[in-house]
């Protein structure tokens, strides 16, 4: 088995078995939040890494999902699961609107314009405090499960389903088209790809996933506040995505699973409590200086090699490709034959 697949399998088993091994409520709470944010980061990667629509306002979808599901279940009496699903749908609609507005924008213009949308929504929410709860937000939601372990499993199962869903999706032909649009939109259009439709679709899907995570977050936290729309959360998504490695899906997930518990753990020390964000930023900066392409591509280069002939991944210790038997380390394989000694 490939080392990277082994690692992925170990990770899934660890996520599933965590409550059995460590039933500590604090650990479970941090782990559930990690799961929620991992799916959120993966949805950002689909939009920014694959399709190249570097969204600086991804919190808009998260907040839209969180606020709409919270409002639906509190004001209209929706049941929790129905509210989560509807929250996801509303976030999808928001994503399609943003995608439509951003169709003509590209590069930095798109990034900077998208930064504006969540702030516009915050402004509107603050202007109607009776409806939205103002700066305090909405509280008093019923969680999705009754027990602590149940709540963790809801978050974990949702995360696994969403992440593997996005992963399969990004690995399909659709993902290939997204790569093409990111690398050269004009050439993609010239090859007969309806780039408009694909861009709209990827905005919708990414927003749907982010909205669902937002809705899960709101029900896990039993409320939704302005922090779900903040610029800080949007930047957080960018940091997770780039730190883990763009256009990989597993990269941002890894980044969340490394960075989020790390910051929480540092925050639990009294001396570090104040400096937690500072240490977080310094860690990100230092890691980037040594691994500018992100954490997971760097690790993957260390444990796997790519077959020069058939482009399949191989464990780094193999001499010949496991698929086509081509020599993997050409210079190393040839040297004995070429030199007489």
């Amino acid at each position, binding site marked *: 088995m490939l080392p990277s697949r082994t690692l992925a399998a170990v990770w899934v088993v660890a996520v599933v078995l965590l409550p059995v091994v460590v039933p500590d409520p604090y650990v479970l709470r941090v782990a559930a939040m990690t799961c929620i944010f991992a799916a959120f980061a993966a949805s950002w990667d689909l939009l920014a890494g694959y399709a190249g629509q570097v969204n600086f306002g991804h919190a808009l979808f998260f907040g839209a999902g969180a606020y709409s599901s919270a409002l639906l279940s509190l004001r209209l009496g929706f049941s929790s699961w129905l509210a989560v699903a509807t929250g996801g749908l509303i976030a999808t609609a928001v994503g399609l609107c943003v995608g439509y507005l951003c169709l003509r924008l590209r590069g930095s213009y798109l990034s900077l314009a998208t930064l*504006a949308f969540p702030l516009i929504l915050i402004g509107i929410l603050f202007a109607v405090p009776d409806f939205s709860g103002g700066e305090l937000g909405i509280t008093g939601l019923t969680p999705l499960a009754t027990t602590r372990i149940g709540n963790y499993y809801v978050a974990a199962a949702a995360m696994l389903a969403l992440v593997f869903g996005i992963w399969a999706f990004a690995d399909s032909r659709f993902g290939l088209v997204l790569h093409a649009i990111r690398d050269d939109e004009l050439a993609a259009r010239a090859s007969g790809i309806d780039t408009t439709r694909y861009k709209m679709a990827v905005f919708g899907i990414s927003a749907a996933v982010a909205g669902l995570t937002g809705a899960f977050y709101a029900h896990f936290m039993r409320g939704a506040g302005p922090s779900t729309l903040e610029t800080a959360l949007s930047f957080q998504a960018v940091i997770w995505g780039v*730190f883990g490695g763009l256009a990989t899906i597993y990269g941002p997930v890894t980044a969340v699973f490394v960075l989020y518990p790390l910051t929480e753990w540092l925050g639990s020390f009294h001396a570090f409590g104040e400096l937690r964000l500072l240490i977080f930023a310094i860690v990100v900066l230092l890691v980037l200086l040594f691994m500018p392409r992100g954490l997971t591509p760097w690790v993957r280069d260390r444990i796997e090699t790519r077959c020069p002939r058939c482009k399949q991944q191989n464990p780094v210790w193999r001499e010949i490709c496991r698929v086509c038997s081509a020599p993997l380390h050409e210079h190393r394989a040839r040297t004995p034959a070429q030199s007489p000694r």
Partner: protein
Amino acid sequence: MFQDILVTGLVNGSAYALLAIGFSLIFGVARIVNIAHTAFYMLAAYCLYALLVRFGLGVPLSGVVAVVLVTLLSVACYRLVIEPVRQHEAAVLIATIALALIFQETMLSIFGGNYLGIPSAIEGVANVFGMGIPWQRLLILIVAGGMLGATWLLLYRTRLGLAIRATANDLEVANLMGMNVHRVAMVTVAISVGLAAIAGVAVAPVFVVDPFMWLAPLVTVLSVVVLGGLGSIHGSVIGALAIGYVEAITVFLLPQGAFLKGAVALSIMVIVLLFRPEGLFGVAFEEER
């Protein structure tokens, strides 16, 4: 009311213009979306506070020292953090975000999260055409106007300015013509952060100083440069004045205006972008394919 709108819009607009020009310059020359830009403005305000209130240096001296220190810091950050990852656009992006967070948290741990006030450089109210304007606001206007003029002279009347504009126009050709594009980029970073620091020093006595004071202007500056067109200098100035006035009008005329001022300004930016995706005065950058 009308006078308030006129003065507030002009003063805020000119402060935004100082910030936006620097942001636009860095983007034009080095293609860096510098999220930390307004964090340097925040640092300059704190630096002024420390020198003026804690160490008791005079206003002119502490202002100059603050600007110089922050500019030197920016050059150091550029050399140590940005330049090693220049090839990786995404890495540069989050490096600037991380820098901004580091500055914010450092200031938070040194000075705490309280709002700090800085006494005005000049007290009193000036009488201009029958309107009472506090001297400090007038000073912001004069400093901003002077710096905008100086920047214009530098860009359009000196060899360095020619090199900066040439690099912004086409990096590779500028390099082939024998310009040291790395040094041009570094000088541009210094100039633009210098402008941000001057803005920070000028407005610090009017606004309160706190570690999170960089976020709101960052968003405004982004909307200004996108409105005016990325990389366009006069676009930035006109965009800054437009946004300054829109905010002032929203605050003074709409109910709940203080909450909505950002939303209205950003909505206008979005609407303009829908009709002109390259902004009002956008320079058409050649598509890098």
